[in-house]
Each structure stands twice: as C-alpha cells, then as structure tokens.
C-alpha cells in the first residue's frame, strides 16, 4: 500500500504530476492516493521531503534464490521448422548467461526435430534438452506446459525466456503460475542488474506509450516472453560444442484434455508478419481491396510482407493476420513503409519500434509523419509505381 505521511507532505504536487497512472491528487495541500495506484513507486522517487513510501506485508520466507542457476531458452518448433525468434532468444540468452557466468540451455519440444538441436548449439546453447515424441507434433498447452514445468522444477534455472508468439504467450503463463514464478510479457530489453544479478525486464505498456522495467526480486525462475525481431541472433558457428540431453516425456504429460483435430495453415497468410524484416503496410488511403495489388508489388520488389491497419482489415480488404496495432500484431521490422495510413495511436503502437519508417500519404498533416523517418506527401498511386521503377533502376545501375 502507498503510505502518505501527512505531516511530512508539503503539497508540492511533484508526485501528482509524476504519477503515470493519474492516481495521486493534491487535496487541501496534501497528497491523496486513489484507486488507480499500481504501486509502481514512481512517486516515491520524486518526493523530496520523503513523505511517500510503499509498504506491503512481508513475503513469507524468501526462496533460496542461490540454488537457482543458469539461463534457459524455450525454442519453438512447429511444422518441422524452428521459429526464428528462438535463435534471437539464444543470442540474448548467451549475453545474459555470460554476464551471470552460467551456462545457457535450450529446450526443444516437438516431433521429428532432426538436426535442430545441433543448430541450437551452433547458435549459442551449451545444452539442449530435447523432448522429441510423435505425440508432440501438435502444440498443446497441457503437454508442452507439463513438460516444461517438470524440467524447470528438476533443473532450477534462474532465467527462462520464450518468444512472445502465439505459442509462447499461451503456455508460458500457465507454466509460470504453476511454478509461482514472476513472468513479464513482451519484453523488448533484458539486462542483468549489477548489484544483485536480478534480471531487468523492460516492456512497453499502454500500447507502447510508456515503458516499464520489471524485476522478480523474491522468486525464481525469472521468466520473460520476448518480442520477435528485437534481439540479435548469433551467427552460426558449426564448431561450437554442447550436450544434447534426451528427455522422455511421461505418459501423463502427454494425456491432454484438449484434443487437436487439425492444424490449418492459412494459404494467403502463411507469412508471419512479425518475422518479416520489411513490411509494406496499407491503410484506408488504398481506397479498396484492389489497392493491395500495388502493395504486393512493392513488397515483392523489396522481399517483404504485407501489413495493414485495423480499418482495412475490418473492411475486409485483407485478413486479420496482417493487422498491425493495438488489437493486431506488434511488429518491429527493419523497414516499415506505411502507405495511405493516417497514423492513429492504435496503429502506431504496433509499429513504432520499426528501425526505419517511411510514410506516404496525401494529407501532409497526417500523424503518421510524426513517427516517420522519411515522408512523402502525395498520391500513393502515383508515388508507389514511381518508387518501384526507381528501385529497379537503382538495382540495375
């Protein structure tokens, strides 16, 4: 609970303006806390007289934190292929493990994983726990969750990372709950705190309007799901050595109450836009579904994929898997070309972490230009074909 010492408070209002949640108000010269308080502690730092403090019931006996050691990465394997985010996780996992001076392990769950375990070692893993069983060909929260939970309980890693993908965001929260572990979703930065070696997990909140850094001081493992395309994978090193530990799943781990009847790949949508380095995005300015023909030409020329705003997905011009924004996917490609997109906050929230943003829009006052690195004002149906021609010419020369 946030405690306000009324005798010390001078009513300066620093806390009121600092509170990111608008939960503090100054009433009659003294700070008053409302129900919106999330105990984030921002106000405590800003209070010069020291009138604020956060107090809570003491945790029951803290865990023996030191008995948990090592960094783990869940490596997602589906339809015979490794999700690219897995290699990115090994990249950041390696950095964290080296800082902590502990080994890095990968967990590979699936069926017919072939040479994948070797590949994980080549990308930084010291140990790969391989659970390869025909019954694991399809993802289920229950089987994957039970296996992961048991492995963590047996081996006690201090950090567990997974991709913030449909699969990672589904079964990892279940695992964390069972373990009583803290889990931070959608991390974009991970670092080790020098004083105590705790994992600093930074993630966007409120649709990217603020960033929050989170720690798990009293529980282990410290778990995070990490957004695709944010972390750097290490280059393949075939010489790297590591162990592969085969783990046999228990029959009760494979007995699931949810049955997979079939797994369907959407024909049109089999590109996961979160994994694409270049995205060509279309909005209402395309005028109709036909406008996406032009978008596809540009995407093909650049080797990218197609993204879209909620408005055009709602209008049925293109499928939901292409939707970027608060209610769609969050993407962080190297290049994002926004065509005919006005730049509503909800859309920007999903793409503002792109490395380079190009905006093409008729309206020079469109908010998309505020986040764009490069902007062209004009008719996209005139600009994009010219852009295509110039790109071709540039490549030839």
């Amino acid at each position, binding site marked *: 609970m946030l405690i306000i010492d009324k005798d010390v408070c001078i009513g300066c209002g620093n806390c009121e303006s600092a509170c990111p949640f608008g939960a503090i108000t100054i009433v009659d010269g003294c700070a008053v806390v409302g129900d919106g308080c*999330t105990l984030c502690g921002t106000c405590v730092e800003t209070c010069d007289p020291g009138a604020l403090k956060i107090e809570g019931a003491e945790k029951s006996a803290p865990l023996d934190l030191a008995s948990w050691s090592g960094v783990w990465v869940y490596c997602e394997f589906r339809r015979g292929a490794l999700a690219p985010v897995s290699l990115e996780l090994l990249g950041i996992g390696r950095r964290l493990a080296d800082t902590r001076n502990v080994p890095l392990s990968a967990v590979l769950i699936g069926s017919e994983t072939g040479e994948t375990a070797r590949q994980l070692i080549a990308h930084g893993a010291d140990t790969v726990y391989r659970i390869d069983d025909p019954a694991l060909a399809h993802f289920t929260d229950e089987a994957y969750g039970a296996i992961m939970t048991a492995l963590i309980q047996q081996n006690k890693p201090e950090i567990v990372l997974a991709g913030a993908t449909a699969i990672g965001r589904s079964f990892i929260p279940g695992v964390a709950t069972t373990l009583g572990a803290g889990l931070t*979703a959608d991390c974009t930065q991970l670092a080790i705190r020098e004083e105590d070696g705790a994992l600093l997990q930074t993630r966007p909140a409120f649709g990217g309007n603020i960033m929050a850094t989170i720690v798990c001081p009293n529980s282990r493992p410290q778990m995070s799901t990490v957004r695709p395309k944010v972390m750097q994978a290490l280059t393949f090193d075939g010489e790297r050595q590591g162990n592969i530990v085969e783990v046999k799943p228990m029959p009760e781990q494979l007995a699931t109450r949810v049955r997979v009847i079939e797994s369907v790949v959407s024909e049109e949508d089999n590109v996961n836009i979160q994994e694409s380095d270049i995205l060509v995005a279309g909005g209402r300015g395309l005028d109709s579904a036909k406008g996406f023909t032009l978008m596809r030409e540009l995407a093909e020329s650049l080797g990218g994929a197609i993204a879209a705003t909620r408005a055009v997905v709602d209008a049925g011009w293109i499928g939901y898997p292409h939707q970027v924004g608060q209610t769609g996917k969050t993407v962080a490609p190297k290049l994002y070309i926004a065509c005919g997109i006005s730049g509503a906050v909800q859309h920007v929230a999903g793409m503002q972490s792109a490395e380079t943003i190009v905006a093409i829009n008729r309206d020079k006052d469109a908010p998309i230009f505020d986040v764009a690195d490069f902007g062209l004002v004009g008719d996209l149906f005139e600009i994009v074909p010219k852009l295509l021609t110039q790109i071709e010419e540039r490549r030839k020369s």
Partner: protein
Amino acid sequence: MKIIVCIKQVPDAKDVRLDPKTNTLAREGVQSIMNPYDQHAVEEAVRLKELLGGEVTVLSMGPPQAEEVLRQAISCGADHAVLVSDRAFAGADTWATSYTLAKAVNVIGAFDLLLCGKQAIDGDTAQVGPGLAMRLQIPYVTCVQKVRQATDSGLVLERMMDDGYDVLALDYPALLTMVKDINEPRVPSLKGKMRAKKLEIRKLTAADIGADPACIGLPGSPTQVVKVFPPEARCQRAVFTGSLDEQIGQLVDSLQPYL
C-alpha cells in the same frame, strides 16, 4: 450451462497519451471502458447461453467504480455480477490477480465455462487467463477465434496461431480466452439497461474469498515494477525537396541499405 466471464475496467486506449512536457500519461478526459477483448468474451457467453440455456455471471477484480463495466455486461445480456474489491489487492501482478480471481470463482461455485478476453489493453500481458485455468486445474485455450460447435458436453473451437489456426475439441469445464474475430459484441438493449441499473452487484472482499494476504496485491506479486519511463523518441526525420520524382530519388537513396 453455467458460464463465468472475467472482465476488467481499463483506460480507453484512444485517450491514453503521454504529456510531452512531463512525460507522464495525460489523465484528463481518459474514459474508463470495459476491456475490448472482454466485450467479445461477454458476447460469446451470452450467445452460448442463448444457444444452450443457462446463465452468465460476470466477475471483475478492481476498484469500486469497476461496477460500471459489470453493469455494462448485464445490459448486454449477462445475468449476475460479482465484484472483488479490496485495497489490499492494489499492485497485484498477473500472478496475484489469477490467485484472487480463482478464489472468487470458488466462492461463486460450479461452472462449465470460464471466458476471458485475450488480454487487457492496459497491460497487454495475456497471462491472467492461463494462470486462472492452472489454479482451477482446468484445461484452457487461448486466442479462440471461432466456436465451431457447442453442445451440452463440450466445444469444437478454432484457436488463432501465428501461421493459421488449430481446430481443437474439449469437454467442460474449461477456460477460453477470446480474440476480437470471434464475434461482434451487441449494443445493450433497453430492457438490459434497465435491469443493469437495478441489479444488486455481489461484492466480495479479500476476507470474503478467504485470500491469503501473502498471495494478493503487491506482496503476492512476484514481479515488481521498478521504473516507468517514456519510450525513446524517434529523431531521424528527413525532409526531401524538389519535384516528386526528385523526392522519390532521395527516398531510394535513403533506403539503399534495405535494397
């Protein structure tokens, strides 16, 4: 069919923006709304009730004013409303929240289905649904985009994946989290609004649900926020000059690394 839907009151995302001077969230004119994904969960619950009979209870953990979203759910067809509210819940992360909700569900009693939105738009964590299912020891399916078949004993569903969708079958009881594709939430009805106005909302405190003080609120939260700060501003912002063709040329120059 007994269905419980967990809903949350959140600040309307379209109102939330940073005050450029203070780098904090501008609070003026920020409306509180029912989390949009939860609206789809309420709608699906009401549709299942209309199809199979039964009743829908909506459950929310939050401050006293979260009553508003419970009443909104009633006006859209839910039958009962329960609010778990206590200052001791403040600072709860998803672990403590799922503990609290599980305790409250146990007080509400037997159910066939528990529905949640995929995630809340203020936190975007998508963790409370799965956590709640684990605590209640029932199976769960996240990101349900379609209910293909619903009978008195179970469901056939489509769950959205990154590369398509999986078709799943399950028996009750179970927990589902909903994406917005699943349905279009209805507008409240006049009769529903009148009922919502009069309805007595059941209120539960931490003591009522028998919560262990070490498992709720800030003390019960394994994760703690240590810092909140604005995202780095983008600064590159180049201005092209000349005719449109020249500008496009300059753009192509700038995009050279990606070609």
